């Protein structure tokens, strides 16, 4: 059974006909190992004298280490080595430094100030896992607890606690100049003035843990030729190798990484934390060392898809065409950059979604907060904003009194259109996808929507949007300086970049600071997270409960009553049906989005 169909009329040059493997079902090469239990994952290698490494972690979101007393742990039976921050040869890194993007901002083992709950400040190596756990519990850390910030808006407030000393404005620095990544296309301000209708929405996505079934881990083994073999769960073998070489100040020729059989990754096994830890352990003890996260660590310190928040403002003309769209986006990077800076770049390249909108502007921030650092996950950088865009499309369709699918077809990009990042659109086929999806769902479309095609009507005026000059809005450091006019910025990073001159400020900082505290919760076990289990028909016992607080759209439309089940109505979508659809979808989206709390 395949649901995949390649329509050659839209994708003529996408794929030759004579491919032997691609596009055809094939038995996986590794499947025999999988079904016999003989596939070798990183932990499926046995070593005599294997030692176990575990971390002492911060119980606080933000704190300074005054002192660590590991003497009791050191004296415990089975403990082989205490590993301190000073044992890491080059204890500062940022993952994308391998691509020359961003500044080193994260230690492997933190010497002084931790920025998230679970950040490691010490490690113990012992003969057994139980002995390592016992020793970790015997370490005494004297903490100086600092004020923390867990919300992106609050983190951007001028007086917010500084999360990451390398980025004292709590935002990543783009192009050495801006505190956000910009997109400017057409002239949104003017277009808004001429708009018939303005539709605004705010969308929030919680972090989502990749939750691979195999937790992150690595085993490093000292070889007789002064090299180290590292068996790892990594998704990015050479990335992990180079990161290890950098942190441990080793020539990469000294490292032999073995991986590739990965027990699920989904983006969560790129961050290369476990590999340098295990190799460091092997270096310090001369024995094979395993550094493996347990499930609690995987959930608590494993980098998730980060939280996002998007404000979208649309201007519509009388016909329901979107003539202007403005985004203010916030990626919650957590305490360190990892891959979030790049997620923002990808997201901005994706705006305004698959629609032809002649005037688009976006300011998107990569924000540091005292949450677990975020990283890649499937659809990296795109999934969250797509969710926001499509919710906004429903909201805008409702405000315009249009069928949501027809509204998408009306605004869909067509071949030959100019996209906001100034590439011509080709192979768009969104219109046809909408038509096919509507047909399969039994969703009635009117004749106009049915007669549209992505192959015609594009280009021309839709391709000739003049270049927009980039403005200087949102210079690095501006926000903070406004709040503290007289004083130089305390705690600015080692390279403290505070460009001179005040340029027009962004309005983001005007929002009142909010603090969001983590609710008390049970430990992060698998049970406490909604890891999607088996699909099953919703039983009446567990169906949606009509007591969700409604999400009030900020359009003129009042928030409609929620129906019991989100299904496509059999009748044409009258405005009323549209209302219920929207409400159902919004309600559902809360469940879709809220799969994780930290």
């Amino acid at each position, binding site marked *: 059974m395949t649901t995949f169909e390649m329509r050659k009329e839209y994708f003529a040059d996408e794929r030759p006909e004579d491919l032997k493997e691609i596009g055809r079902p094939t038995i996986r090469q590794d499947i025999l190992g*999988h*079904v016999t239990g003989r596939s070798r994952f990183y*932990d*499926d290698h046995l070593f005599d004298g294997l030692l176990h490494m575990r971390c002492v972690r911060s119980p606080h979101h933000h704190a300074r280490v005054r002192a660590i007393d590991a003497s009791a742990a050191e004296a415990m039976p089975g403990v082989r080595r205490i590993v301190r921050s000073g044992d890491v040869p080059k204890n500062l890194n940022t993952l994308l430094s391998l691509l020359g993007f961003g500044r080193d901002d994260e230690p492997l083992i933190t010497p002084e100030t931790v920025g998230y709950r679970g950040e490691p400040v010490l490690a113990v190596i012992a003969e057994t896992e139980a002995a390592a756990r016992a020793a970790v519990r015997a370490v005494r850390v004297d903490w100086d607890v600092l004020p923390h910030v867990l919300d992106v808006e609050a983190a951007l407030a001028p007086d917010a606690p500084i999360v990451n000393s390398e980025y004292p404005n709590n935002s990543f620095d783009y192009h050495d100049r801006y505190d956000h990544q910009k997109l400017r296309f057409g002239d949104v301000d003017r277009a808004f003035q001429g708009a018939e209708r303005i539709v605004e929405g705010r969308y929030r996505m919680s972090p989502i843990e990749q939750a691979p*079934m195999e937790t992150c881990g690595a085993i490093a083994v000292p070889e007789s030729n002064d090299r180290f073999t590292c068996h790892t769960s990594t998704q990015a073998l050479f990335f992990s190798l180079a990161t290890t070489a950098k942190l441990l100040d080793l020539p990469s020729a000294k490292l032999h990484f073995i991986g590739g059989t990965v027990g*699920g990754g*989904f983006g969560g096994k790129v961050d290369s934390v476990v590999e340098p830890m295990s190799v460091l352990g092997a270096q310090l003890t001369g024995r094979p060392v395993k550094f493996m996260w*347990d499930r609690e660590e995987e959930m608590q310190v494993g980098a998730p898809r980060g939280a996002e928040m998007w404000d979208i403002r649309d201007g519509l003309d009388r016909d329901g065409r979107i003539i202007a769209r403005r985004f203010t986006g916030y990626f919650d990077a957590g305490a360190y950059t990892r891959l979030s800076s790049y997620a923002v770049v990808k997201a901005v390249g994706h705006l305004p979604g698959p629609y032809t909108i002649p005037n688009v502007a976006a300011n998107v921030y990569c924000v540091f907060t005292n949450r677990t650092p975020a990283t890649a996950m499937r659809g990296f950088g795109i999934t969250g904003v797509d969710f926001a865009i499509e919710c906004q499309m429903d909201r805008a369709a409702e405000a315009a009194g249009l069928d949501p699918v027809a509204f998408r077809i009306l605004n869909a990009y067509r071949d030959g259109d100019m996209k906001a990042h100034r590439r011509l659109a080709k192979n768009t086929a969104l219109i046809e996808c909408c038509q096919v999806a509507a047909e399969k769902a039994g969703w009635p479309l009117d004749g106009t929507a049915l007669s549209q095609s992505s192959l015609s009507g594009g280009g021309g005026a839709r391709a000739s949007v003049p270049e927009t000059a980039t403005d200087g809005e949102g210079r690095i450091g501006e926000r903070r300086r406004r709040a503290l006019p007289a004083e130089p910025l305390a705690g600015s990073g080692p390279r403290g970049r505070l460009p001179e001159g005040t340029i027009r400020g962004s309005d983001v900082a005007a929002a009142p600071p909010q603090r969001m505290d983590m609710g008390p919760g049970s430990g992060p076990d*698998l049970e406490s997270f909604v890891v999607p289990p088996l699909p099953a028909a919703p039983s009446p016992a567990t169906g949606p409960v009509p007591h969700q607080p409604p999400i009030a759209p900020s359009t003129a439309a009042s928030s409609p009553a929620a129906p019991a089940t989100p299904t496509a109505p059999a009748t044409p979508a009258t405005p009323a049906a549209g209302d219920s659809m929207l409400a159902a979808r919004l309600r559902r989206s809360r469940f879709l989005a809220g799969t994780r709390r930290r």
Partner: protein
Amino acid sequence: MTKTAVTFRLNGAETAIFVDGGQNLLDVLRRGVGDLSPKYGCGQGGCGGCSVLVDGTLRLACITLAESVDGASVETAAGLADGPRLHPLQKAFMEGFAAQCGYCTPGMLMAARALLDANPDPAREEVVEAISGNLCRCTGYEPIIDAILAAAADLRGGAAR
């Protein structure tokens, strides 16, 4: 460190090993005996990666006290095939794309095996229930359910339900 001697049959072979107090069966199978087919996914009973049969009943090795299987018969995915001859479940999983990363697969197979031992002709919902303690992050479950139903039919001699 006090050690306790434990003897059990592992996939039919007599096995004896010393275990530590409080050591779990998963650790003993993997590191002690060298049967690496059951997997660690949580150590909390929450993922099913370590599913094994103890005296024919499905259990989670990670939360089974190792010494409690003294005298018992333990079966793991490593013992499913009869030499080079794959078990129908293994064949169905191969042919039905029921594994991607393969990490959940040994546990899934054992949960499915426990089901088919007790119920050779399960309904789809019974399959769903039988693997409800086993998480898979890759496949979306449907191919696994289909494969188990296919294996059941195969075991019954090809009679489709």
